[in-house]
């Protein structure tokens, strides 16, 4: 975890409160402008007409503290802290139902991910949000060899909340695991050796390059 060669860690390193303070200073009382300027697809927030179709279409709507419609309204109302520390946009499963239905054609899924990423970059994302945690584990796992190692990923995930919980979850998921092994969807050897993909080195290079670009961008903050 101390290996800074991973771009995500670069971002994580950047996500210091200094960046956050700079942004607060730059966009005083203009959170909407901040979002428009810095969040991926953020300029679309202007175009929401508050019909609420996204909120009604979200299959996980009940799990969200603030549905997309509200998030957009909160951005317009300048509720910076509330939006960026919210776990709502982390609940998005990218089912794209909202994008399909939005009468104003807002790329809502992308805006949600954009907001989550921006909050993460500024170090405001909720630390223990499970989706966020899993996303990071998955990234670490897949960037090592260019291919996901289901065994280690599973183990890290199960033991995320302590040893006892890990054992409990592992036992519960045992039949699934065995079926995956049987159908060759997962190799138990992954525990000791994971072959990864063919162009493992190219992937590493590619990620390195991406990290450089990202770091150059980060300098702004």
């Amino acid at each position, binding site marked *: 975890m101390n290996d800074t060669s991973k771009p995500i860690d670069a971002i994580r390193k950047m996500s210091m409160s200094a960046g956050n303070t700079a942004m607060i200073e730059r966009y005083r009382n203009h959170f909407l*402008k901040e979002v*428009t300027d810095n969040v991926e697809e953020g300029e679309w927030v*202007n*175009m929401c*007409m508050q019909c609420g179709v996204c909120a009604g279409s979200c299959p996980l709507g009940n799990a969200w503290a603030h549905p997309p*419609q509200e998030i957009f*309204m909160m951005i*317009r*109302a300048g509720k910076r802290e509330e939006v960026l520390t919210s776990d709502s946009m982390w609940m998005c499963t990218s089912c794209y139902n909202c994008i399909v239905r939005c009468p104003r054609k807002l790329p809502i899924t992308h805006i949600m991910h954009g907001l989550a990423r921006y909050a993460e970059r500024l170090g405001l994302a909720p630390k223990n949000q499970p989706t966020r945690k899993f996303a990071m584990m998955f990234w670490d796992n897949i960037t090592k060899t260019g291919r996901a190692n289901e065994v280690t990923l599973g183990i890290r995930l199960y033991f995320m909340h302590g040893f006892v919980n890990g054992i409990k979850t592992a036992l519960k998921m045992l039949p699934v695991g065995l079926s995956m092994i049987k159908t060759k969807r997962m190799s138990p050897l992954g525990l000791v050796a994971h072959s990864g993909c063919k162009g493992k080195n190219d992937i590493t290079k590619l990620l390195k390059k991406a990290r450089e670009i990202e770091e150059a961008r980060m300098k702004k903050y």
Partner: protein
Amino acid sequence: MADEKKIGAYLCKGCGLGDRLDISALKVVAEREGKAAIVREHDFLCDASGVAMIQADIDTQGVNRVAIAACSRRAKTEAFGFANVAVSRANLREGVIWVRPDTDENRETTQEMATDYVRMACVEAKFMNPPDANKAATYNRQLLVVGGGVSGLTSAIEAARAGYNVTIVEKGAELGGIAAQLYRQVPEHSPYSDPQDTGVAELINAVSNHKNITVHTRSSIAETDGAPGRFVVQIAAESGTSETKTFGAILQATGFTAHDISHLPVYGYKTSPDIITQFELEQLTKAAGGDIIKRPSDGKQVASVAFVQCAGQRSEQEGHLSYCSGHCCSTSIKQAMYFKNANPAIDTNIIYTDLRTPGAGGEDFYRSGQHKGVTFTKGQVTSVKAEGGGVSVKFKDLILNEDTEEKVDLVVLANGMVPNSGLNIDDPTSAEKPKSASILNLTYRQGRDLPQLKYGFNDSHFICFPYETRRTGIYAAGPVRRPMDIAQTKEDATGATLKAIQAIENAALGRAAHPRSGDLSFPSFKKEGCTQCKRCTVECPFGAIDEDAQRFPVFNESRCRRCGTCMGACPVRVISFENYSVDSVGQQIKNIDIPEEFDEKPRILMLACENDAYPALDMAAMNRQEYSAFVRVIPVRCLGSVNLIWITDALNSGFDGVMMMGCKKGDNYQCHFVKGSELAHMRMSKVDDTLKTLSLETERVVTHEIAITDIHRLPQLINEMASTILRIGMSPLKF
């Protein structure tokens, strides 16, 4: 043509009529009972040879009353539109064979229906006269336009270009009205992204330079007398001079006044110079020439502005308008763009409860505002107050469901529009109001201004006939008719002008205007019988009837729409039309055969409005919706024309039930004569007493509101009535 009435009855065998009905038996009926001098059948009456056969009889045999037993009177109107004769129609296709099953056990009752209809058509023809046009018709190509705003100017230029002479009477010193004081207008053309020039200056220029347009500014209407084709109008100038001119038609384009909300403390209007109305912002922007607007209080450049929508509108609270003024949302977007276009860093927030941007480009314009960074907040404003060198707007955020506050430099209130529609003639005190309170100062018995429909607007029917007012030849256009913006106003004025031109042309030929457009008949009355009861003059929905010195009715034919409401109102039955009278319907009722009580064949009379109910019945027939064979349908011009004598006669002669089918009444009326259906319902509500004196059950007479779409409901209502009769038993009054 002989003066004597000679009936020719023509029976069609086409469309299955020949297969389903015994045509030779019907011929005997037409001859013996219908007293037709000539009776002929034809395989396809509406084809060229059939029509030629009838025309030949008219030309050589002296037939002047034609009874056609074929399809509905709504079908084949061109083929059977014979000139200079009276034509009646027996509806054997839509009224009989298409609504009855083709089975042996039903053959007898189906034939009975046809027999009645043939007899009825013959007798109707006998009691009809081919109408002569109104002899007093005059052709006057002058159009009076009251009001010199966008609607009046548009109307004037459109009429002038169409070759008519126009006189504009404008109260103010200048033409252009409110629109002339606007900085820009909401865009009318694609891409609907930015405010555009109002074009009012060009419009004023075009009107001022047109040789067929005369403009009277600082003037008002002192009196309007007459009727379409011969309006006599006194135009009084502020200077005290007066001029009398005659006009063919009048267009009222008196526009609106901004709603005064200074009495509503919640919006804080007039408590601070930084709380202004939309109109005041237009004036400020115009004065600034589009530069960044300075705050009225201290001249500081405005850095943030909040627009409060529906300020004093769309609420039933005291002092609020209960309607939506339609233009304000688009106007606020436009005004927010004034700021954004001058400097994108200016905060512009539009606080709305429901954003409404009507018109083709409305959504595009809304989107354009969003692109420019105008913020839209769904919220309900609870207070606007000057505070600490700015203005505080408190509102409830309706999405986040919380009370919140915004501090801005300037607040713009969307205060809405109130029509300049003159006197409310339904208000009993209106007669005492001074001349200046009225716009048209009509000499009509029914009041000095146009009747108002709702909220003081002179609207007619929103969808079916928007420009028609209840004063023939006088049309309302623009925001006086209903709230609208500049683009809609121009369209509206053009449409109303066309209607005014139609009125001029129809008046010249002595023909009716909408909806019986082209009808040459008009009501006449027998003075000997008249009791001067004034019911006709009061109930005429169109103010067509005045009173003379002895209180006898004076009919103004060209104001009349030929609905027959006067005929229905007249208790002594002295009012009639050449081709539609108490007799022409009454005799049909008398000629319906009433079987004896023990035949168990009840008879239901249906009087169906020809505008909605009758076409609905025809459509039901086209869909082969079956209904009881015991009903006999007589179309009427309007339920308002139904005279109570028809009902009492029908019941006295042994009818078991009477159904009256009119249009929807009330505020959202669909009655083509506006008040006809309502009057009929009111009159029929008193029919119960008559029924009780005849010791009949009150269920025997029913009145229904029918829409043209009630294709399935109508047959159902007929069948319900038939089962009601079955339940309560046959009428005891059969002989």
